[in-house]
């Protein structure tokens, strides 16, 4: 595989071997850039608020505030802009660890970092200099605005057009699902490239919250992921012309190089975190002296079930580690090839299915009291509800439809 000529990780800390203390449970090569104490700090806050923000369906403001004050919000910002300069493995490790206790908080963090890296790799120097230092300081939480009514959920099309008006770009965009939109300080919005652009000519536009009015149009009372407050919104205002991220109308290139892989890698890290946390808590319960007296840990059925659950997670982990390496060493050409896209999509679909199945089986293992009740300390019930969103969070059906076409393009079946 060829290596990109322009290093997108310039200014970032290179991955290196970890000391055991710094080793994340996801065991990807986390760089030395992150202070593990800061991650523990955020995880502690995330754990404390997880039950309440889920039951009340409120955004985890305390967690976001701690991400701001620890500057972890600037994890993916290069040091040249005052950020931590973390790698993709760093982002995934932190997202994973937070998701072990609160998947909503983990996903909020992972998706913010996906937006940040998109800015780092594709924003104009002027825009990068204006926004990245503020993200590094913890001042800007970025929300993603890619959904739009009537386009069937396709990422690569847009209907509402961005219009030029003198020296400003006019934005008027409705989106049915904007995670954390009410708390965002900036938005990355997909829009059709002007009235003359086709639905496939999509531009990515950055809008600072001070440049637009961002009105929620409804609430978010969901089965799981309740704390993400993924509300419908209308965003209206005007932004400077430099706020187009990447080439006008060429959002697809951003998706191939950055946006798509990071979505799937970040989500997979979160889902695996939630399922991994659920398994860890369950094993701790099963191994506790009290519980040991109550059940037969030598039961073949129990052991087979535990084995299959762990197998599911190891499959996801292996795919994720491989896909991460492909992403890190890839360039626009290699990542745009059918085999790489198939891998990224397969990671997403597999993680969404296997992590949910693992938690479902854990509930079967521990039974009604520890598995099904909301006040069980294992929190399997919340993990199950949260993970049910995974297949819908960019629909698996839609990915399979794309993948089927890609399979036909890769007639030699060359694995990446």
């Amino acid at each position: 595989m060829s290596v990109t000529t322009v290093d997108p990780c310039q200014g970032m800390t290179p991955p290196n071997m970890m000391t055991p203390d710094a080793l994340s449970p996801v065991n990807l090569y986390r760089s030395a850039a992150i202070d593990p104490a800061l991650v523990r700090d955020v995880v502690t806050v995330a754990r404390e608020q997880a039950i309440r923000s889920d039951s009340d369906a409120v955004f985890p403001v305390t967690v976001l505030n701690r991400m701001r004050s620890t500057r972890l919000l600037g994890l993916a910002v290069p040091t040249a802009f005052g950020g931590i300069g973390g790698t993709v493995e760093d982002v995934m490790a932190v997202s994973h660890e937070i998701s072990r206790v609160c998947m909503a908080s983990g996903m909020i963090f992972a998706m913010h970092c996906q937006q940040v890296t998109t800015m780092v790799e594709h924003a104009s120097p002027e825009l990068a200099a204006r926004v990245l230092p503020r993200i590094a300081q913890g001042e800007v939480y970025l929300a993603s605005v890619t959904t739009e009514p009537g386009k069937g959920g396709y990422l690569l099309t847009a209907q509402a057009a961005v219009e030029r008006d003198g020296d400003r770009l006019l934005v008027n965009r409705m989106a049915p699902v904007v995670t954390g939109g009410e708390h965002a300080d900036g938005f990355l919005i997909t829009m059709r490239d002007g009235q003359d652009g086709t639905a496939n000519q999509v531009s990515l536009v950055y809008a600072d919250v001070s440049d637009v009015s961002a009105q929620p149009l409804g609430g978010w009372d969901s089965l799981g992921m309740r704390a993400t407050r993924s509300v419908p919104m209308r965003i209206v205002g005007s932004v400077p012309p430099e706020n187009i991220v990447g080439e006008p109308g060429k959002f697809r290139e951003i998706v191939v190089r950055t946006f798509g892989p990071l979505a799937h890698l970040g989500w997979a890290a979160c889902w695996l975190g939630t399922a991994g946390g659920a398994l860890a808590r369950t094993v701790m319960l099963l191994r506790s002296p009290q519980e040991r007296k109550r059940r037969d840990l030598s039961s073949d059925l129990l052991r087979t079930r535990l084995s299959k659950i762990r197998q599911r997670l190891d499959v996801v982990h292996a795919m994720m580690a491989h896909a991460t390496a492909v992403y890190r060493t890839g360039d626009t050409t290699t990542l745009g090839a059918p085999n790489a896209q198939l891998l990224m999509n397969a990671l997403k679909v597999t993680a969404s299915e296997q992590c949910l199945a693992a938690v479902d089986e854990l509930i079967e293992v521990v039974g009604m009291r520890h598995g099904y009740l909301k006040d069980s300390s294992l929190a399997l019930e919340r993990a199950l509800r949260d993970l049910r969103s995974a297949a819908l969070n960019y629909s698996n059906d839609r990915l399979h439809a794309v993948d089927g076409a890609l399979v036909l393009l890769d007639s030699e079946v060359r694995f990446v």
Partner: protein
Amino acid sequence: MDEKFTTVLRPHLPFLPADRQLSDSDALRDLGLNSMQAIEVLFAVEDAYGAVIPDDKLNDETFATVGSLWQAVEDAMQRQEVGR
């Protein structure tokens, strides 16, 4: 290694003759311990001593000999003492 340790261990070592004493260098696998039973030995030891052997010690090295397992138990008890 104390007397209790031998008592706890013995039922899990089917190839250990009833009249033979255990020594530090005895290989647990040779005496019949396999990885399926290691978890039972672990629970028995943890119950007997009220100490938890940490995950990173649950490896082949710890379960290699009577002495290495006893060492892990002693370490765990010591850590528990310090933690109190």
